């Protein structure tokens, strides 16, 4: 404990107010400030931020002996960030030495933030509601149901770029209702409510074969083309004679093509033991399912099931690849009760037979439901819980006509609708007078599992927690969890959001417009544009002829449709997303340097993506690691298709968005938002009459304005370095007939001539910035809360650990998992913590403050 903590503790226990405490601490800190820190600030900062100057509203000499440093925390936090990022003092001014910088950083951490390196403040996480992904995964692991939470629940709100932030995960009445409905549907799907059903066997479509194709697929459907005859068969072996029921599931499929129709028809015949049961014409009905049921009186032994397809319209144009899908045939029977069996899943939920007596039944219900609740709530439950659940079950199964199983199922619905399931409640170990306490091992198990798996803890974690051995075995458990296939969640959800790779699924990109920019200058097109502007700008009423001309120009210029030569098809988008995930996964699993995320001589592609990137000799759909030729611009996240496309506008690249992306997600120094009134740039570009300006030219105009330059000098060079990649992530050499110039200079001084240079510069000079940014992002995601000033110490410790390891992901993960905020929680707010006012509930009351949190 350092002396400030001592002072704090003494004063707090003595009953001083937060303000008094802060003042006392301030006096001590001010002394230190004058001696060591002020001289450095005077020399390097006061030219602009002191001695009467306050550029950007910051005057550092306002914090003198009579001022409270702690209250200036937000300003000092900015000082720390800008100093570390090399943004301040500006590159052209005199720079403090490394030691001087470190002195200021340490002073801010210890005298302003009051950080204690040996016992950092863990902060506090607001109770977290399961987000959509976590809900879906938890249901999968708890009950074995594949619930479509993305389709059934509204999107979760996000904060700091992540959708698992406790404060922002709110719950509206509509969402509560959805949780109720989901609980009912999930339990209805998984938990049997009777103990005997007729035996049932599903023959998947793929198992209907014809001798010639000898397919070896055993699962999934089988598709038969409308255009060619087919015969497929399967032999079902009935063990017993009796009444059977056959359910035939079919679906009509097509490959959608805009504006064309396919009038082909086919005839399908379904035979059992040679006898026709179904004979029906099918036409184009994209995506329509068909179900047919047949009763059969079968002898024991083999029965042959055949499908025969005959095309009915030879010679008709085949435009939509029509096919009839045999989804499967379900054989149910024998229907006689004595042959019935336990339903699928029965043993999973009801391991024993239902007892005879009322008391035994109740005890069984308590046992089943207590265990289910323990797993669902992810911690031991109190004694009342199984009792109350059994009450609920009993109230159902004691009704006439209701089964025991139906009652238990109803109580399970209540478990899934309970706030104890929907929210992640945490408990802490006894604090014994300390301000911070370890979270208990059940909470730790959940923190681990939701961090690495986006799902509930498994039985092993529960057992470790119950035995109190999880903390002892932490690294072994983490290794085990990372080896588990559920760990893919970290890539899908963390990487998918940090690098916005998830957005590739939906980002609107108009291939035609994107590619048009790479075509040579078209004087005819330009003449039309000019004429359009001329007519459109006329202030007098247009003649009818002019109106017609304007309408026709509008159509030609803005509405023409042509098929583009390349497009971001769903298949390509998936491959891009996979690339981003695979690269991270590879570095994580092989424990390679994190800097390979910035620059590497390999990436992951399949044939389609390789073609898009101009990489040759890759055949096949599966993604694989390829070593890139030395002159390849790819390798590293900046040149991945996901990043390049999600930072683009629908019709063009956006160097500004790309620059912001790098500043925010790679270097950790997001620029300030644009000012409210952006001056028009048109005038400055009027000189170019013979062609449209390139983006570089447009942006250059920005930077002539001093106000714009302060941020655009940082964003634009980064974004422009990527101009060789169009909005779809394809390489290009020119835009509008002008060669692309990717060269530039970072605000920190390094010059580069192309993207390869820039990547090398980032690795060489900005590794620490990158480690820090990645640590902050991953810590935010792991904790489910935004980082605050008191987390600076924790982040610094993790970054130091990464550097010491030579940039290993294992150091990053272990650093986060072992960190104070991951392991602990605040017991009560320290004296300097902000006072959280209960939000005003008065109708129409003005909300919020104007103070900006940085």
């Amino acid at each position, binding site marked *: 404990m350092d002396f400030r903590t001592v002072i704090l503790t003494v004063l707090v226990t003595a009953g001083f107010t937060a303000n008094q405490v802060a003042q006392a601490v301030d006096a001590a800190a001010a002394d230190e400030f004058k001696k060591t820190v002020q001289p450095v600030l005077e020399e390097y900062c006061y030219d602009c931020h002191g001695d009467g100057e306050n550029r950007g509203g910051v005057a550092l000499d306002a914090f003198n002996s009579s001022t409270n440093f702690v209250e200036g925390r937000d300003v000092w936090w900015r000082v720390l960030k800008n100093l570390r990022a090399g943004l301040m003092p500006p590159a052209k001014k005199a720079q403090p030495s490394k030691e001087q910088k470190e002195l200021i950083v340490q002073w801010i951490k210890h005298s302003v933030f009051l950080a204690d390196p040996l016992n950092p403040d863990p902060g*506090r996480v607001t*109770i977290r*509601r399961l987000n959509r992904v976590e809900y879906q995964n938890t249901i999968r692991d708890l009950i074995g149901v594949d619930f479509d939470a993305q389709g*059934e629940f509204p*999107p*979760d*709100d996000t904060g*700091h*770029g992540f*959708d698992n*932030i406790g*404060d*922002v*995960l*709110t*719950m*509206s*009445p*509509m969402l*509560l*209702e959805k949780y*109720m*409905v989901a609980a*009912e549907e999930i339990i*209805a799907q998984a938990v049997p409510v009777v103990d005997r*059903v007729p035996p049932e066997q599903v023959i998947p479509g793929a198992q209907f074969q014809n001798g010639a194709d000898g397919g070896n697929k055993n699962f999934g459907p089988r598709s038969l083309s409308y255009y060619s005859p087919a015969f497929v068969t399967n032999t079902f072996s009935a063990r017993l004679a009796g009444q059977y*029921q056959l359910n035939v599931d079919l679906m009509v499929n097509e490959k959608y093509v805009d504006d064309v129709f396919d009038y082909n028809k086919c005839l399908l015949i379904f035979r059992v033991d040679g006898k026709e049961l179904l004979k029906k014409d099918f036409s184009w009905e994209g995506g329509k*399912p068909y179900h047919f*049921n047949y009763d059969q009186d079968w002898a024991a032994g083999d029965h042959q099931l055949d499908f025969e397809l005959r095309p009915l319209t030879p010679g008709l144009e085949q435009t939509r690849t029509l096919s009839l899908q045999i989804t499967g045939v379900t054989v149910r029977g024998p229907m006689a009760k004595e042959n019935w069996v336990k339903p699928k899943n029965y043993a999973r939920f009801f391991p024993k037979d239902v007892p005879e007596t009322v008391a035994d039944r109740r005890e069984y219900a308590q046992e089943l439901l207590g265990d289910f609740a323990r797993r669902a709530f992810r911690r031991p439950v109190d004694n009342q819980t199984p009792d109350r*659940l059994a009450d*609920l079950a009993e109230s159902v199964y004691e009704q006439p006509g209701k089964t025991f199983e139906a009652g238990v199922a*109803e109580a399970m*619905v*209540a478990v899934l609708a309970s*706030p104890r399931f929907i929210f992640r409640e945490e408990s802490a170990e006894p604090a014994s007078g300390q301000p911070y306490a370890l979270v208990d091992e059940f909470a730790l198990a959940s923190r681990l599992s939701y961090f690495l798996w986006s799902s509930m803890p498994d039985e092993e974690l529960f057992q470790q927690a119950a035995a109190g051995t999880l903390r002892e075995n932490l690294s072994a458990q983490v290794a085990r969890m990372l080896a588990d296939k559920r760990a893919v969640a970290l890539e899908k959800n963390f990487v*998918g959001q940090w690098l916005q790779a998830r*957005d590739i699924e*939906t980002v609107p990109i*108009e291939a035609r*417009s994107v590619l048009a920019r790479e075509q040579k200058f078209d004087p005819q097109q330009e003449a039309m544009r000019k004429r359009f502007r001329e007519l*459109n700008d006329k202030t007098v009423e247009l003649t009818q002829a002019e109106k017609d001309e304007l309408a026709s120009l509008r159509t030609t210029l803005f509405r023409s449709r042509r098929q583009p030569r390349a497009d971001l098809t769903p298949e390509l988008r998936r491959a891009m997303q996979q690339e981003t995930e695979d690269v991270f996964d590879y570095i994580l699993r092989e424990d390679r340097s994190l800097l390979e995320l910035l620059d590497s001589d390999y990436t992951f592609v399949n044939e389609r993506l390789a073609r898009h990137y101009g990489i040759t000799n890759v055949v096949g759909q599966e993604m694989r690691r390829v070593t890139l030729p030395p002159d390849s611009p790819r390798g590293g996240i900046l040149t991945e298709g996901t990043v390049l496309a999600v930072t683009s*506008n*629908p019709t063009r690249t956006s160097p500004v968005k790309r620059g912001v992306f790098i500043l925010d997600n790679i270097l950790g120094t*997001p620029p300030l938002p644009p000012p*409210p*009134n*952006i001056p*028009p*740039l*048109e005038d400055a570009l009027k000189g170019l009459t013979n062609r449209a300006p390139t983006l570089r030219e447009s942006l250059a105009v920005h930077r002539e304005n001093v106000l714009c330059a302060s941020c655009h000098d940082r964003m634009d060079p980064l974004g422009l370095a990527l101009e060789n990649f169009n909005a779809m992530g394809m390489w290009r050499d020119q835009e509008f007939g002008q060669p692309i110039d990717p060269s530039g200079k970072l605000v920190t001084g390094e010059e580069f001539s192309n993207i390869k240079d820039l990547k090398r510069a980032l690795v060489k000079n900005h590794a620490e910035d990158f480690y820090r940014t990645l640590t902050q992002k991953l810590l935010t995601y792991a904790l489910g*809360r935004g980082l605050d000033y008191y987390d600076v110490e924790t982040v610094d410790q993790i970054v130091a650990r990464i550097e010491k390891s030579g940039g290993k992901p294992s150091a990053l993960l272990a650093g986060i998992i072992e960190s104070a905020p991951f392991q602990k929680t605040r017991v009560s707010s320290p004296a300097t913590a902000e006072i*959280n006012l209960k*939000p005003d509930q008065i109708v*129409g*009351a*003005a909300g*919020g*403050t104007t*103070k*900006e949190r940085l």
Partner: protein
Amino acid sequence: MKKKLTANENISLQRHAGLSRRHFLRGLGVCLALPAFESLLPTRLLAAAVSPEGNLATTATGAPLRTAFVYFPNGAIPAAWWPATEGTDFPLSRTLQPLAANQKQIQVIGGLDHLNAMAGMDGGGDHARANGTFLTGVRLKKSATDIHAGISIDQAIARQVGQFTRFPSLELTCDAGRNTGACDSGYSCAYQYNLSWSSPNTPMTPEANPRQVFERLFGAGGPGERVENAKRRRQEQRSVLDFVMQDASAMEHRLGSRDQDKLDQYLTGVRELETRIQKAERFGDVKDPMVPTPAGIPADYAQHIQLMYDIMVLAFQTDSTRVATMLLAHDGSNRSFADIGIPEGHHDLSHHQGNPEKIEKITEIDLFYVQQFGKFLDKLAATKDVDGNSILHNSMIVYGGGNADGNRHTHVNLPILLAGAGGGTVTPGRFVKQGGKPATNLFLSMADRMGLKNLERFGDSTGRLENI
């Protein structure tokens, strides 16, 4: 060929109804065939039966009085939005042309502002502010996680009139997806994707999937099965609600104040569901509209919007709610309008910087949104209410946005119009310039007409709006 199901199959079908029905519904047409009104008249109007004073959300003629707020993103090109002259018989502007058929039922209101959406000390973030301020009228707390807005006007109204309908309010959106990454300039995404707030930190998440809204309103299953399905669901829910209510109360005692807010939100939802179950028991079930359930979110944006508007019409028609909000797209939306020949992103274009081609395209997008709204008004105008007037006559529907000029992010003289005659309490068919008043003054005047008591101020209101 089709045989009767065995009892066992029946059980299995019912038990799997929830999950197989989506499959079953695929392939059905996307637009709702709106049924004739007579078939949907509630057996008994709840308001008439319960309202002690009789004028809460009720017209002088005893019909339900409804209000809705429809938000369109990124402002509107002012020159094309505003009519040339004031008064009655004003000439419709280019953007408002699609409302010609209902010109007598709309009031274009000029001079309404949201000063709390201006930058002030908060810097960038005009889209978040435009969106989050629109119905709240408060200054948003600039934070990515510590969200704090204010109650929105629709919720203030729903608090008092919600008791008369099965759903106190309905929140809809046509923004189906959500991007990752931070939202506007340090503001939480919650401000940009929610229009309606039931408390300063509880946004009322809007629903984008027409199937789900429809099922929530009328029950799952096909036409004719919904009333039974809803009844069975209510029975199941009752015992479950008791259990979770106890769980939530016990849990609330164990938690700190931040966490308690979350549990409060949960409990509010539980109580609302309980209330709805009680209402259904007291007043009977909603009439099944006997139209097929919509299949999901149509790929075509115009169809999606129409489907959501159709559901709003149905909700009003069946008196399922009298308060609704619709966020067509969040402010700052960069949707591509390739369907109408405008492939560029809406937001990207809206910073047109005087480029006439871009202005033209934005005008076309503004027009597209008004066309969709026009069709909605057509349907409301064609639907008769209990008192013989149209539902449009017995409604007050705000259509507007929180950015005036999207190019410069201004928040004064917002594009706002009020459709419907409020059951005869407002005078549509005019263009009225209010000369720089808070938009919340309009909301306060609407709340008055909805019969709200004790609402002296709302947001940054400075008084009532004269002359509406």
